């Protein structure tokens, strides 16, 4: 009997077919030119933390893609496949292996690319492979969920329009109160503004303070600015998933909104992949020349200070800080001097991190890694490089201009038990900004905080210290607190006590927070009870957001300070 040619699965056939359309000269050159010299090997954070595993070497990972390229698109590989390491993909299992490399062993940080003497840009080839796999439905679950949200709801985190506008309103109120100035508001959909400000949905969901801080800076600078009510998400999961169609659709949505509002400039809040996607790659994916200027809010803030539109007092930021360059900002967009110039103006003790700028190491949560929980142990192991880099600075605060890096760094700081906090430039600038006398900040003691009296709050967490902390903060402000240390008790207490609010940890032994959350939502008597998730494991978000029930009313990352806890509880309970 003759040897049968292996049968190729439909998905594998489609990947090969689509590769021919995705390949451009730059990628083909990168795939053809590698000489396997191994010089790039040590530039990868995965290699540094897995020195005995050659499968993490950038050239090895690139060869998983290169072998297909050689087999189908390069004549040497067609004629002598074995000789040049060419091989095809046949089964869905082959594609799963590719998925493991393309998504699970590389954050597309491009550090190996700038360390290759041949100019081989593996990160770009890897993004192409991600896109091919996504096009046949082979991808980590988190990538599928986030992509779906961005396609269907218009932003990566499934933030609904009402939730977004609600948050803007809330932050607007906070700002007016802080500055005692009714004109200090967040303008929405104002036509002909000089600046249209677009943000990351993470700011709405987990970090609304950055919106209020940016609004404060725009207000103090006397800027004519606005935020769009739709198409406001400047992040773009297409960059991570390799899906150029998604990338183009998301970018176009934002550009069209700016055009509709006749905005003169689009200012992009601090986010590495958002900045790269919106300013650099977006016009390519969308296939359009953008008719307005785009800049990072880092440049905007720096200009305001230089032009004297806002005055800053750096003595308000005295804690030692270091700066983490996001890969997308520094290595792909050249944004690395301006953040340092800004830091020089708003902090007193800046400590440089080494290596830095375009040679910096990835936060290890890049390339969408934070949404791929199946690779979390690998990610955290590779994060040792970053942890050592952070610790060596001796700083207490790491500043970064990227929301993705905020999550990645926070997670590794927790994992490696570093005594550090993560913040962004906008927070430091807002703190340092001197408010002119006409909008003097009232003394904190001058305004009595609204009471939570009469509110019954069920706090659920398996850590006794955390329960004690929540109880003391909430009871000090008049709330009645009921505690549960596990899921079953939480459900029983919720049914008995009918609380006004449940704060819920996700990671608990037995019935986890996700199951408790769904049970609450599906119980007719409890379905309207607002829930605030408070977790130290952001990678477990899918336990909540993957469920076909109404999303939680609040979400906080641990550790939570008393002010944040109270602000969020008040917001959810509408106590103002």
């Amino acid at each position, binding site marked *: 009997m003759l040897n049968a040619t292996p049968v190729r699965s439909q998905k594998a056939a489609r990947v090969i077919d689509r590769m021919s359309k995705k*390949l*451009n*000269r*730059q*990628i*083909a*050159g*990168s795939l*053809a*030119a590698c*000489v*396997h*010299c191994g*010089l790039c090997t*040590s*530039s990868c954070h995965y290699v*540094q933390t897995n020195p005995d595993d*050659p*499968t993490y*070497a950038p050239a*090895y990972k690139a060869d998983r893609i290169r072998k297909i390229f050689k087999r189908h698109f390069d*004549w*040497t590989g067609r004629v*002598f496949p074995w*000789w*040049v*390491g060419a091989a095809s993909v046949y089964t869905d299992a082959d594609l799963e292996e590719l998925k493991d490399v393309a998504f699970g062993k590389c954050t597309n940080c491009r550090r190996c*690319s*700038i*360390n*290759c*003497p*041949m*100019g081989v*840009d593996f990160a770009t080839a890897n993004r192409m492979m991600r896109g091919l796999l996504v096009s046949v439905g082979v991808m980590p679950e988190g990538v599928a969920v986030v992509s779906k949200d961005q396609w269907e709801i218009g932003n990566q985190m499934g933030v609904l329009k009402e939730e977004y506008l609600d948050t803007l309103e809330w932050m607007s109120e906070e700002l007016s109160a802080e500055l005692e100035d009714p004109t200090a508001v967040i303008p929405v959909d104002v036509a002909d503004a000089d600046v249209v400000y677009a943000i990351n949905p993470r700011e709405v969901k987990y970090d609304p303070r950055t919106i209020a801080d940016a609004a404060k800076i725009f207000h103090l600078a006397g800027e004519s600015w606005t935020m769009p009510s739709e198409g406001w998400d400047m992040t773009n999961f297409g960059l991570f998933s390799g899906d150029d169609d998604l990338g183009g659709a998301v970018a176009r949505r934002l550009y069209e909104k700016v055009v509709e509002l006749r905005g003169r400039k689009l200012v992009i809040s601090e986010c590495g992949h958002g900045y790269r996607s919106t300013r*650099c790659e977006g016009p*390519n994916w969308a296939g*359009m020349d*953008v008719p307005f200027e785009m800049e990072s809010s880092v440049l905007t803030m720096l200009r305001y200070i230089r032009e004297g539109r806002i005055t800053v007092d750096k003595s308000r930021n005295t804690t030692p800080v270091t700066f983490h360059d996001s890969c997308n900002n520094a*290595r*792909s*967009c*050249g*944004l*690395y*001097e301006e953040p*340092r*110039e800004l830091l*020089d103006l708003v902090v007193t003790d*800046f*400590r*440089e991190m*080494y*290596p*830095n*700028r*375009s*040679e910096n*190491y990835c936060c290890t949560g890049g390339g969408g890694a934070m949404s791929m929980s199946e690779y979390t142990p690998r990610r955290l192991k590779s994060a040792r*490089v970053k942890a050592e880099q952070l610790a060596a600075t001796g700083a207490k605060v790491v500043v970064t201009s990227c929301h993705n890096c905020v999550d990645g760094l926070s997670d590794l700081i927790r994992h490696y038990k570093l005594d550090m906090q993560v913040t962004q430039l906008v927070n430091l600038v807002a703190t340092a900004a001197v408010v002119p006398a006409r909008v003097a900040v009232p003394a904190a003691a001058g305004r009595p905080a609204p009471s939570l009296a009469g509110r019954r709050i069920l706090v659920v967490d398996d850590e006794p210290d955390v329960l004690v902390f929540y109880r003391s903060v909430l009871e000090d402000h008049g709330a009645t607190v009921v505690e549960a240390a596990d899921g079953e008790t939480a459900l029983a207490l919720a049914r008995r006590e009918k609380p006004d609010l449940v704060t819920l940890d996700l990671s608990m032994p037995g019935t986890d927070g996700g199951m408790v959350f769904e049970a609450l939502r599906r119980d007719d008597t409890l379905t309207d009870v607002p829930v605030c998730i408070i977790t130290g494991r952001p990678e477990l978000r899918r336990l909540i957001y993957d469920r076909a029930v109404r999303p939680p009313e609040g979400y906080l990352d641990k550790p939570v300070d008393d002010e944040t806890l109270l602000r969020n509880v008040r917001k959810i309970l509408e106590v103002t």
Partner: protein
Amino acid sequence: MSELLHFAEHRLQETALAVMASVYALRLVWLFRFRAGRDRQAPTGSRPPAMARGLLYSWLNVGMPWAMESTRTQAGLYAQFVVFHLGVTAAILLSFVIPYAPHWLDSRALVFGFEGVIGAAFVVGLMRFYRRLSQPTMRAISTPDDYFSLALLTVWFLLAVLAAPNRPETNEPILLAYFFMTAFFLLYVPFSKISHYLYYPFTRYYLGRTLTHRGVYPIRRGPASAAVEGRRVLAADAHRRPERSPTC
């Protein structure tokens, strides 16, 4: 000189060179059939980046060991690279000098020069072979072509060293071996990874174009990078810190 040696030095080399040039041309046609990407983004920075400077930086990268961390921190490997490629250049040059300007080799100094450079490249070839065989990562990324190309060049270096004095009267077998090997080398190169230098200008052009347009090239490092387009950078104490890698 025997007829065979004359054939090997002239007709064989010319034929091999012509074949190599044709296959190279086909390789370029193949590469250019892939569409070139277009970058629509506005250039980074208040002034358009100096594209010519960035491209030059990208192309000359290979001669600037300080430009990349990988060459800065692996100086030994970089030195090997330099010696190896000088050896290739010298061995190719020798294959033209012997047939077309043999009187050059009347100079003992020049023969020593060829022998020294190509001999050093031969030693580096052996070291590279050892590295490729002994390191698990290098083994994992090596194909039969990688081993064969390296072995081919290393043996070729040895033959070139022995052929350098150009003594057909006493050393014809070595000269024959050197020229037949050179011809084989020329014919094999376009099909192997040795053709990488054909791609070098293109891969470095595209990477250089993108990274210059986006303000990344030429790479700046702290704390040495001070003023950028006339602006002040860095906190004062950063200048006192030595650069170091956190993992070395």
